[in-house]
Structure formats: structure tokens, C-alpha cells
């Protein structure tokens, strides 16, 4: 793929481990966990009653220019504003805004908003007729129109974080939200990268934002038996690649990055943090509940991203290292994902697979669902910057069938120049990004 080079010039996140880039990064390198008992609703009797929630000390109003214009912001929009404001500031575009707002676009992978659960349920039950097994439409409308809030309802549309960011940063270029489950924000960054490469914008804000830590979100994943139901210490519940892994743990929050063409970044004297060099996307087209057992789609996505980046997965680099030096795994901690992801990495890198460190920060930060890819992308940029690999926490009982280097339990120093970040979504989407050290 031809076109201008694309660099990262700003990053920000809001997570269960904090909401500044360096403080969260430090906690990841310390293998700290953000999991605690759920507080967003009374989950005490749910099969899963813990999560990595964004803590109460996060207040998006401290990040934006005028909180009043974002008065309606739901949690996803609040997280997005907090994360994107950090990224925008770091990029230098907060101090010197882009000259033409039409050349500034947005591509997010934001989730659906949080249902106004109490009023929703009260309305449903009010209108329920047990005898017919139906909700009475007229009773429902009377109650719903009276008790539900106009803006809270509109905020649940998945494109609302996009609307808030567009307003805050005056973006008038191409604007998209995609929602491909757990792959959404990786796909968003990949498509933002593709838009810049095509020359349809100079700057793109990209990333994801999501919380599913609400009654129906946890209900849905519990019914699918996708969540860990481990008893005891919640910080030990997320166990990617471990033989006793039992599902993922929900996180919430947002990761946002500023991407721009190298030419645009250089012209304004910005400092590239890293370069995006490849993006691959594929679809399993297999089953609604299962991943293709050989990891076919995952391997295709990685291979396409590597091809775009000009990397031969079977060739060591000039220093004798494997062609990439870190994989940010999707690594959810479900039996199926971790096993198939391992197969796919082996299929792509062959004999070199075992020499490439691969870890899952979901072991500490939880699974941010649509926003997972963005925070994991940022982890790759930080690994390159600091020469440190975040660990996979809770990997004390390795699965004998999973034999790659998962960076167990402790962060590790390593010279990293090229990384790949993988995410795979329920529904079969697979997305991979190649991130490289920026060299002029």
C-alpha cells in the first residue's frame, strides 16, 4: 500500500488503573490489577461481581474546555473526552489547532451507551401483561415518555462519543464509528490509518471507548459463560494463558490516539511517538459463537498487516532478532481465545513464534471490549518508547499446551522496535496493527 507515512503524535487513556498515560503504564509494568468488587450496580448475586472500573476520581470536566457543552455526556462520552483531551494536548494540536477542520477526521470504535436501566425496567414491568405475555404499547409509552430522559436516551447511540469529540476538537472531516465487538478500536485505528494513507485527511483522532459494566451487559456475558466467575480475590480472576483460566474480566474506559501524516506532523514541528506501518483485517465467517478453530482469520489479519509493513514473518532482522519484538495479545483469558490465538501466532511466525514475547494487559486492566484495541495499541507505543514489556499477570500455572513466551508475572526490559497488536471480536472480525519505532 502506498501513500504518506502515518505517525502517532498523541495518546491518552482512561482506565481502571488510572487516567494518565505514564501513571497507568507504571502500574502495568508493576503488574498491578484494577479489579475490585463491582460498584456501578448491585452485582452481589451475579455470577460475576467484580470488574476493573474507572475509579471515582476521574472527572471528565477537568479535561475539557467547557463542560457545559458536554452536559449530556454518558459514560462512554466522558471516558472518550478524558482520553482524547490528553492525546490532543500531547500532540500539540490543543495549543495550535489545525488550520482546516475539514482535514481533521475521527474514526472511533465506541460501544453502545449505558441503558437507563432502572427506568427501562420500571417501564417494561409497568406495561407488562403476564396473561398475554406482552408489553402494552400505550401503557409503555405513557410511562417511558414520562420517566426517561431525552438526552440520556440519545446518548446511547454509539456515535455519540464521536459527536462529543467532534465538537470539542472542531473536527469536520470524515467521521466514523465502527462497532465490531472486541476488535472495534483496532479496526478504527486501522481504518483511520487507511484514510490518512489515501490522503482524505491530515489528522485523525482514533480509538475506542466502552463500558459494559451494567446489569444487562454482565447478564449477557454471564449467560454466554464468557466471564470469569472465580471466587476469592478479584485481582486473580483474569488469567490469560493460564491452565486455570476461566473467562475474561470486564474493564471499562477509553484509549484515544492522534494519528497524522508524517508530512503534517513535521510541518508543525510535532514529535512522532511511533509509526503505524501495517493494518490487516479479516473475517472468520465461521460460527456466531465460536472462533475458527485453527485461527485462520487471525493469521490472515496478522499476515496482511505484516505484508503492508514490509515484514517477512520468517526472517530475523539485521540484529538477529525475530522480525517483531513484541505482540500485544488479544489474550482474553477464555479457554478458546488463548488457545486459538497461540495457534495463529505459530501459524504466522513458525519457528520464530517462541522467541517473540507476547503478553495480555487484560490480566490487569480487564477487557475494555470495544476500547480494548486502543489501549493495547498504546501499550505497544510505550513498549517501544521505554524498552519495557508489560507482563501477563496471574500466569502461575502455565497451560502445557500453550508454549509461547507470555511474559509471565513480571515486566521485562527488551529493545523493541516493531510490535503487532491483535484483537478479535465476537462475530468473527480479526484486526492487527503493526507499530514501529519512528525513524526519520
Amino acid at each position, binding site marked *: 500500500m502506498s*501513500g*504518506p507515512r502515518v505517525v502517532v503524535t498523541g495518546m491518552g487513556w482512561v482506565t481502571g488503573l488510572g487516567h494518565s498515560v505514564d501513571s497507568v503504564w507504571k502500574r502495568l509494568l508493576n503488574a498491578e490489577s484494577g479489579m475490585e468488587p463491582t460498584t456501578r*450496580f*448491585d452485582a*452481589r*448475586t*451475579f455470577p460475576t*461481581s467484580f470488574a476493573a472500573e474507572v475509579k471515582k476520581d476521574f472527572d471528565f470536566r477537568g479535561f475539557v474546555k467547557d463542560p457545559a457543552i*458536554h452536559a449530556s455526556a454518558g459514560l462512554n462520552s466522558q471516558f472518550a473526552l478524558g482520553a482524547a483531551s490528553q492525546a490532543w494536548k500531547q500532540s500539540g494540536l490543543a495549543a495550535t489547532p489545525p488550520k482546516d477542520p*475539514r482535514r481533521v477526521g475521527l474514526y472511533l470504535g465506541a460501544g*453502545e451507551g449505558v441503558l437507563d436501566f*432502572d427506568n427501562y425496567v420500571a417501564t*417494561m*414491568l409497568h*406495561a*407488562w401483561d403476564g396473561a398475554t405475555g406482552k*408489553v402494552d404499547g400505550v401503557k*409503555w*409509552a405513557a410511562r417511558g*415518555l414520562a420517566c426517561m430522559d*431525552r*438526552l440520556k*436516551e*440519545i*446518548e*446511547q*447511540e*454509539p*456515535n455519540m462519543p*464521536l*459527536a462529543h469529540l*467532534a*465538537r470539542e476538537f472542531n473536527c*469536520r472531516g*470524515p*467521521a*466514523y*464509528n465502527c*462497532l*465490531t*465487538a472486541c476488535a472495534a478500536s483496532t479496526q478504527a485505528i486501522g*481504518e483511520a490509518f*487507511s484514510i490518512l494513507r*489515501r490522503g482524505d485527511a491530515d489528522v485523525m483522532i482514533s480509538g475506542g471507548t466502552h463500558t459494559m459494566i451494567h446489569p*444487562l451487559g454482565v*447478564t*449477557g*456475558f*454471564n*449467560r*454466554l459463560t464468557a466471564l470469569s466467575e472465580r471466587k476469592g480475590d478479584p485481582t486473580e480472576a483474569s488469567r490469560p494463558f493460564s491452565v486455570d483460566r476461566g473467562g475474561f474480566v470486564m474493564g471499562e474506559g477509553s484509549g484515544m490516539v492522534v494519528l497524522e501524516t508524517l508530512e503534517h506532523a513535521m510541518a508543525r514541528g510535532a514529535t512522532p511517538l511511533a509509526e503505524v506501518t501495517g493494518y490487516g483485517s*479479516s*473475517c*472468520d*465467517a465461521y460460527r*456466531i459463537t465460536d472462533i475458527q478453530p485453527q485461527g485462520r482469520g487471525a493469521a490472515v489479519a496478522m499476515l*496482511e498487516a505484516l505484508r503492508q509493513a514490509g515484514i517477512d514473518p520468517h526472517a530475523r532482522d539485521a540484529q538477529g532478532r525475530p522480525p517483531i519484538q513484541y505482540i500485544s495479545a488479544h489474550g482474553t483469558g477464555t479457554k478458546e481465545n488463548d488457545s486459538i490465538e497461540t495457534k495463529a501466532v505459530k501459524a504466522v511466525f513458525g519457528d520464530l513464534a517462541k522467541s517473540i514475547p507476547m503478553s495480555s494487559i487484560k490480566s490487569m486492566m480487564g477487557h475494555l471490549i470495544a476500547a480494548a484495541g486502543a489501549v493495547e495499541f498504546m501499550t505497544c507505543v510505550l513498549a517501544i518508547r521505554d524498552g519495557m514489556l508489560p507482563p501477563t499477570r496471574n500466569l502461575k500455572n502455565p497451560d502445557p499446551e500453550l508454549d509461547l513466551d507470555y511474559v509471565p508475572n513480571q515486566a521485562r526490559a527488551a529493545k523493541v522496535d516493531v510490535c503487532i497488536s491483535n484483537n478479535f471480536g*465476537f*462475530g*468473527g472480525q480479526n484486526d492487527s496493527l503493526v507499530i514501529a519505532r519512528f525513524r526519520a
Partner: protein
Amino acid sequence: MPRQNRRVVITGIGPIAPAGLGIDALWAALLEGRSGVAPCASFDAAGFSCPFVAQLPADRFDVRQVVPKSYRKATKVMSRDIELAVGAAHEAVRTAGLVTKAHEPADGTVTIAPDRMGCHIGAGLIAAEENELTAALATSRKADGSFDIAAWGATGMQNLTPLWMLKYLPNMLACHVTICHDCQGPSNTITCGEASALLSIGESMRVIGRGAADACLSGGAESKVNLMAVLRQQFAGRLAKAGVGDDPSKVVRPFAGDAIGGVPGEGGGILVLEAAESAQARGGAALAELAGFGASQSFCPDTVGADPCRDGEGISDAMLAALDDAGLKAGEIDAVVPFGCGAVALDAAEAAAIRRVFGDRAAKLPLVTLAPAIGSCGAGFGAVAASVAVQCLRTGMLPARVNGDASLGLDAAPVAARKADPKAILVYTPSLGGQNAAIVVRSVA
């Protein structure tokens, strides 16, 4: 600017709308100016400001008839939105003359290699089927009838089928479509309200353009005929103010001086987009060329976009970008398919955008208004609109127009279907939230 561009053509269209599945049913209704608006059949909507919807009657579409036999069981976990997308995809593939896995070919031979087939489908915020969910919720009530979350967490949730959530994830439209037709290339789900389908079509165009796929199933689908969606339409200022005694066919009046709002609809469409060279190589007939695409974001005075910016500048930005991408001047456009849902503020913004782009020609440039026939089907609207634009190019006809008038300075007044031989048509959709998308389709005749 570097513009990697393989030419992209449209080889199949599969709209799904109140008139039925497929372009023939829809086109017949449009030529006659037949309305799809009627009292809501799935629940009594009289408690909202408008009791009418644009719904696809059950006897006109049964998803079980269009999926492969081996896939019928999966229809149990399809929400209405998924059913619409699966039906539309079936029709699109049929009209394109493609053989896919869905045909269960005896020797396994398909027209296009699965890894070269992508899929981009716009989706809405899918509402949980209220009777199913409430039946489960009702098992967890306290003595006073209020909801008991402790009981729900402990046992009540088990009244929901394990796969319950998979009916409602927006990407499950594409998930089912990609499984049926074995699309293993890039797949995405765009969720930008009413702009979703055209943004998806645009993304497919780029994916094919840069060589990441040779063909894509592309479009969108949504049902707004459910309680939560109707409530949100009313909250967003989009729902008509009409009484049960009103004539449903007269409620939606796009660009009219006496417009009273829109009606919720269900529908959408899937198109088959292909690289021109690939279509030619397989002997597939191009119905039209997808010549240009543009996207933009509007400034939203209220941030969320329920109150659109009346100058329509963001909408015209998308139109101009699509024209530029197609290498056409505004003067070379022969007709426009607007969103035109009949909501006063949004219609005014669209009218301002049309006048900005087309100047003096705006008053005479034919608008193809669809909302009286199909209502506001959210993420699906742009795909119906794109399919209709293709049909106009193929037949040389413009369909009848009902209920509008010229008060906004546009060619929007009632008119019968007529021969017009359009060569290039602009289609656009603005969204609640401020995203705009536009495409230009061009005749290949």
C-alpha cells in the same frame, strides 16, 4: 494527493422495505407513489406522538426462506435487524448472479474466492425484543412488583437464552451475512445512525480500491419499529405529530411547508460492489458505477445533533467531497436522493446544503424522496436510497413523488413517475450525531 483507485461497480442490489424484499417490489410501489406508512402492527403506538410506522408485513418476508437449509436454526438468534440484513444480502447476491456458499454448490465452486469477499454493514442501536426480555425480568420482582436485582443476578437471568446478547450486538448483521456467504475478507460494522449505510458503502469502495478485496457485500439495515426506537425518535424531535384519524399516507411530507415530522421505519439493503476488472473477468454485469464517495462531520449546536445546524454546511461538505471524488461538477448531477425524512429542522438543513452545492439549479434538480414510502429506517436508509438510485440509472425513470412541496426552493412537489434518463445521481444521508455521507452513482450505459 495519492488516490489508490480501482474502479468500483455495483453488480447487485438488494433493498428491503415495506413494499417487500427486492428492487421489483419497491420499484413498483415507488412508480405508483404508494405509501408504506400504516398503523403499527407489532404494538399499539397510539401513546406516541405518531401512531404510524413504515413496516414490512410478515407475509412479504420470511427470513427462513432465504437462508440455506443448514442455517435455518440460526434464525432463532436473529433480531429483526439481522433478519433484514440477511434477506437483503440474499437478494443482492441473487441479482449479482453470484454463487456463494449459501447456494451450497454441489462441487463447492463459488464465483468469488471467499478471502477476496469483504462485508461492510451499517447497523443501529438494536433494541432488545421487549416481550422476550420483560418475560424474563418479570420473574424477578419484589412483593410490591418492583424489580429485584438480587433475584435477577441469582436466578432470574437464567430465563434468558444463553445466546440472548448475540441477537443485539450491532456486528451480528455482518456476522450472519459473512457466515451465509462465506465472506472472509475485511468486515466492518459502521454505527453512525442514518449515515451508516453510505459510510459502509464508502468503506467497501475504499477497501476494494486499495485491493484488500475484489467484492464486498455492503449496505445497512435497521428496524426502528420497536418501543425504544420510537421513543428515541420522539425524543430526538424526528417523530411526526399525527393522530390516529389522520391519513397515514399523508403524514410524511419531505421538504414541505406543512411538514410535521417523520415516521419510524424498518428496512435497508445490501449491494454487491466489485472491482470493475473483477466483475468484467467473471462476466458480471455492472448495473452502475460507484463513482464517488465523501464523508464529513457537521457542527452540532447541541453537541448530540438532535438540533441540526441549519446552514447544512457539514452535509454539503460530504456532497462536495463525493463529487470531487467522482471527478464530476455539480452541474453534471441529474437527480438527488436526499434523506428528507419530513422533520422540519433537518429538512431545512438538507435544503440549505442542496442550495449551496447546486446554486440556481437547486429549484429544478429532481429530488427522489423515499421517506413517504419507507419511513426512517435509520442505518438502513442509505442502502435503500443507493439501490433506488441504481434503478433510476438502469431504467431511465424517476419514480413518483408525493406529499412534498417547493416551499424550501427545491424540486420536491408531487409529480408522477417519468422518463428522465439520468446519467449521474447523488445520494446522501445526514445522521443524528452529525456524521454525513454521500455517494455518486453513474450510469454504465
